[in-house]
């Protein structure tokens, strides 16, 4: 029984099936809120599911002269890394007692893998617009990753230098959520900005600017590879904000049901912040993005880390 548990965890409960279904619903919320902001009615509830089923049924074209193995494999590696991230976190949360030192670092690595998959696929797909997208995505990673790590340092410092997610959660349960301190709220906002870039949402969708470089990095995808890519985007939208809520804003209520409700509400708050940022901003250029993250962003990040070290 015990040896099947990891597989069940990976494929069904905190893993693939669960986050795919939740992600589809969340992606519907994203599209619906976007539609309402633009004074439209918006798509039906199952629209993201229709899109994915349709893409699975379509022909997959592999451009001439492209490495078939890499082209077909990379979208799935990106899906797998997100599922692994979700499984790790879910298992840690529901069955504590099996954490390992440095699982936060592993999570940060896993969150970078989808972007790296995108860069590699775009570079091998032999399309000039895809290479432009790949180079932009690379610069964007360099821009936001440092700030993201700085922001994640704050909960680590607050919990007394522990790089284990369970310890950070225990600290928040014992004292107060990280976000209720000055350094915590600054770091949380910085992390949300980085998340916007990680999810490829509008002010930072420079790598796949649809109107400018025709969806750039994914321009040569079609059929089930595109479906895998869309699925990984949909899953990210569910998993990444959850990760932030867990690190910065974790609280416990009396019952399990209350826990789920409060957790869901916090997640929805983060999601709505992300969607509103997406809908009220124009796309910026890549040089503006780098300048933004490395000047104001980094300044805020350093301030929040210093405040956390002082103890505020």
């Amino acid at each position: 029984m015990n040896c099947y548990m990891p597989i069940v965890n990976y494929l069904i409960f905190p893993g693939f099936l669960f986050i795919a279904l939740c992600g589809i619903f969340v992606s519907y919320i994203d599209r619906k809120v976007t539609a309402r902001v633009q004074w439209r009615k918006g798509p039906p509830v199952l629209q993201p599911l229709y899109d994915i089923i349709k893409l699975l049924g379509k022909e997959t074209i592999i451009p001439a002269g492209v490495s078939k193995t890499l082209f077909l494999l990379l979208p799935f590696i990106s899906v797998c890394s997100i599922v692994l991230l979700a499984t790790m976190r879910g298992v840690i949360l529901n069955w504590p007692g099996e954490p390992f030192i440095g699982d936060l670092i592993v999570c940060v690595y896993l969150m970078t893998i989808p972007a790296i998959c995108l860069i590699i696929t775009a570079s091998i797909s032999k399309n000039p617009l895809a290479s432009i997208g790949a180079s932009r995505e690379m610069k964007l990673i360099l821009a936001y990753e440092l700030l993201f790590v700085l922001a994640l340092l704050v909960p680590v410092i607050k919990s007394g230098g522990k790089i284990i997610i369970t310890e950070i959660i225990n600290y928040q349960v014992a004292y107060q959520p990280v976000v209720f301190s000055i350094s915590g709220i600054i770091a949380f906002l910085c992390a949300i900005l980085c998340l916007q870039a990680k999810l490829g949402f509008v002010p930072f969708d420079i790598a796949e600017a649809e109107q400018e470089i025709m969806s750039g990095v994914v321009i040569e995808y079609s059929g089930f590879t595109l479906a895998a890519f869309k699925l990984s985007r949909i899953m990210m939208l569910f998993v990444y904000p959850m990760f932030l809520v867990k690190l910065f804003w974790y609280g416990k209520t009396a019952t399990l049901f209350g826990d789920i409700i409060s957790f869901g509400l916090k997640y929805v708050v983060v999601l709505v912040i992300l969607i509103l940022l997406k809908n009220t901003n124009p796309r910026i250029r890549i040089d503006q993005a780098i300048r933004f993250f490395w000047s104001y962003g980094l300044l805020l990040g350093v301030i929040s880390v210093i405040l956390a070290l002082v103890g505020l």
Partner: protein
Amino acid sequence: MSKLTLNALTKSIWVFHAACSPCNNCDIEILDALTPKYDLERFGILLTGSIRHADALLVTGVPNMKTAKKIKYLHQQMPKPGVVIAIGTCACGGNLFRHSYNFVKPLDEIIPVNAYIPGCPPKPEAIIMGVVKLIKALKGK
């Protein structure tokens, strides 16, 4: 094509807009049809940037010496199953340019066309009606 794929396809049509030397009026009407006023995302219709993601190719204009080759190439790049919709009288049959020196062939002799939406230019309502009729035809009703 299985029934599931067909159902999903007709509920999520991603369109690619190919201007095949038009006078731009039809293009403007297509963009009008995609504005929040008509809100085609209700039916899952989205404008995509890349032909590789598209399920429907919207063609406007008269194919001439240069664009006829390109529209054929574009149609080959589209992953199947996909449909072609000719928008405007030019794309449907050449309009007043059909005796012109640079007119090659009507669009439907270059690539297979699934739906014709005449009009110079067709209104957004006409485009939507054409798409609805095409969906019904695809479903075999």
